[in-house]
């Protein structure tokens, strides 16, 4: 064996006996590069395993407070699997109410959901907080035009006398001054009814058919209604004028920053001032149509939206932290669930989401924001 061969053998021995540290480092670097190249997957929103921060707001109450005792979750089912949940509302005490296929359920905690509707066929409901009594009343509409009220303190129902049509009640809303409005839109007819005594008596104030009602949070006499077109009243519903917008999906006004009025339609919102003058138009570039839009009650820049492409059967819940400009889909088990309603907890730390055929879900917004 000549000298050159001997040297080579020596080098090989060094390598395989791990004597040459530089070379081993080189191999390790190649291996590391290969591994980093293989792993191209970007973690999805729901797959982030970082420890989410606790809600910065300590005011979470009731169900939200209960859920936030744990911090290791982002999206969680609250039950009613395989069931359609149409509508959600939450009281100041943090109790969630859900309209589930004609019943109203009271949900105190994840384990405790009780039907309170006593066999009534409910098509719409709304919670009216009574600050002086530290309780709430639930105003509910029935499938044959009935209007009921439920006291959360007394846990009992009252039926009101009305002249509504024998058809489903479409929508119920209320003003901060305590006026309650019921809207109806059916093939038999419709209208707008108003109660100023906590739902005991009702009077019809408009013959316009009504599918959506929004009362301005700071101007109790300013009411927006939508049906085939959108209308505005500045006198508590006694008279209405047509708003110059094609958006008739629903009207949203932020409770704090209430100068802008958002008129939703299937793929965006038109913004008007309080008097209905259009100031801007925003289109969401997603495939499909909006199924629900909700504003964070303490941050006007944060919106949640249900979006669904019916022909393809895809969509779900979307989040925007920049006033609807950009949207991210909230993944996990909520992906491809058709969202029908969204309710924020009082401190906006948790969102409750009603879905078609897939029950109710909670979204840990505190954790989501940290991502």
């Amino acid at each position, binding site marked *: 064996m000549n000298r050159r061969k001997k040297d080579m053998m020596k080098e090989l021995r060094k390598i395989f006996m791990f004597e040459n540290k530089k*070379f081993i480092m080189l191999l390790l670097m190649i291996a590391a590069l290969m591994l980093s190249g293989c792993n191209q997957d970007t973690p999805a929103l729901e797959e982030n395993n970082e420890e989410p921060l606790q809600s910065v707001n300590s005011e979470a109450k009731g169900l939200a407070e209960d859920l936030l005792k744990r911090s290791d979750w982002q999206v969680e089912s609250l039950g009613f699997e395989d069931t359609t949940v149409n509508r959600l509302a939450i009281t100041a005490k943090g109790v969630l109410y859900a309209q589930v296929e004609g019943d109203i359920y009271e949900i105190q905690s994840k384990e405790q959901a009780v039907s309170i509707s006593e066999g009534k066929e409910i098509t719409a409901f709304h919670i009216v907080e009574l600050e002086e009594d530290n309780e709430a009343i639930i105003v509910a509409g029935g499938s044959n035009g009935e209007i009921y009220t439920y006291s959360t303190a007394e846990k009992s129902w009252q039926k009101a006398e009305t002249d509504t049509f024998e058809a489903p009640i479409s929508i119920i809303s209320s003003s901060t001054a305590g006026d309650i409005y019921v809207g109806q839109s059916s093939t038999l007819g419709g209208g707008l009814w108003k109660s100023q005594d906590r739902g005991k008596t009702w009077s019809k104030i408009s013959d316009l058919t009504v599918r959506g009602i929004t009362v301005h949070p700071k101007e109790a006499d300013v009411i927006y209604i939508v049906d085939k077109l959108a209308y505005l009243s500045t006198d508590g519903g006694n008279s209405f004028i047509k708003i110059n917008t094609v*958006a008739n999906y629903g009207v949203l006004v932020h409770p704090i920053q209430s100068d802008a009025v958002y008129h939703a339609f299937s793929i965006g919102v038109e913004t008007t001032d309080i008097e209905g003058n259009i100031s801007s138009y925003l289109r969401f570039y997603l495939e499909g*149509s909006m199924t629900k839009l909700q504003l964070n009650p303490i941050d006007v820049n944060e919106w949640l939206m249900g979006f669904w492409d*019916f022909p393809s059967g895809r969509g779900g819940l979307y989040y925007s932290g920049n006033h609807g400009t950009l949207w991210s889909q909230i993944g996990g088990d909520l992906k491809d669930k058709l969202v029908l309603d969204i309710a924020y907890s009082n401190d906006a730390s948790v969102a409750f989401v009603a879905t078609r055929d897939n029950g109710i879900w909670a979204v840990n917004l505190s954790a989501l924001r940290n991502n």
Partner: protein
Amino acid sequence: MKRHRMILIIVLIVLVGIGIYYGARVHFKEKLEADKPIVGEDIQEPQDPEEIRIGVDNYSNWHEVQNHNSIGEANAYAEKRLEKSYNVYLNRVFVDIGYDWDGIVFLPIRSIGEGLNWRIIWIPDKQMIQVVKGDEEAFVDVVNFFGKAYVSLDILAHVLNLDSIAIEDGKIHISEGDIKEWQQGIGEIKGSSFYIDDMKMTDAAYKLDEDIYIPSKIFAMSFGRIYRYNAEEGFITIDGNRVEAILIDGIPYSQLAHLEEIIDTADHSFSYDAMGNKGKKVEVVYKGPDKKRIALTFDDYIDAEVLPLLDVLDAHDVKGSFFIIGNTIDVNKDILEEIYNRGHIIANHTWDHLNNHSIPEDEFRGQLISTQLVIKKHLGIVPKYYRPPGGYYNSKMLKIARDIGLKTVMWSLNSNDASFDSKPAHITEQVLKNLSNGSIIVMHTKRKSTIEALPEIIKKARQQGYEFVGIDALIP
């Protein structure tokens, strides 16, 4: 010593590199095999294997596998989403098909609204429809499904003030206003096939008392004419002219003689028999033979914006193949002639660019025949090739295209120029990276990025030895 060490390091790096290369090849080959679509399952090809020819067994690269799989998946998904369907009858007359999506029944608003004399105005920016009748108006959020607007049954009933809706046995019966009586087809009825210029127009023509009756709508559609059903008055019109019609199984039929009074058919031949299909093979082609010949294909509308594209092709002496949507050909006949006279292939991309999964069979025939006839009117030739809009097809569509004399031509290489943010560099990279023998490349007619990308694509492809040909040179 140092030199020896360096030699050894280089040798080992080379060995590692060779290992990675072969590993990747094995991995790719395995993936290719694993992901190869199973013809007959993925895209629901015709059942009879003797009857079909599909160029999918000669994949050359990963893109082609993905391309074919994604088309297969999209088609299977579309079929699934359209599984729950309803024939919709308005005042006893069949008008269209509705679908149950996620528990909500959706109906096409245009056919029903127009039947009840509502003006249906599409607002593209907002993807809404405005409906207007007299003093009444409303804006309707619609669900778009390949150019056709659907709205939920509930909303439709509300917006159009429909009197009654009954759902039974896969049918939806809508009644509104006074329902007029139609003369019903009676006597011995025998359904048969009816052909125009040897293209099968319908399988449901009838002979009644020695008169041939054709479904009025399909006849009008095949000539690209405007058919209207006035449900309030109970009659039909073609190009605004009222046509005498009788109702058979909820479908208005008119005598061929009456139809010929409205539509000039002098340049066409008709035949009538009970033969069904003519036994030719069903053709669906994804790519050409394994030779250094490739085809550029351009889909969709034509107008003056196509001229710069033609100039680029001319400048490089390339023959393209244009799959053209029929409904704007009449107003752009000069452009059609220009494309043809410059030596490009003219092919059929249906009349309205709908997803043809979702429309009735006879209407699909109308979509193809009307495009054939308008091209024949202006050029004197009948296209041999058809491409389904969006790549959506099923076995029924393949057979219908066959009955009309059309081969279904897909693509093996998607240039991705249809993406709204597609830049020339992306298109160039996408095409050059995935080229292979026999590639059929899909592009679109009115895209500036495509026009800018083409010179580089043509130059580099030729440097690699490829020859650009029309699809007629790839498909026998």
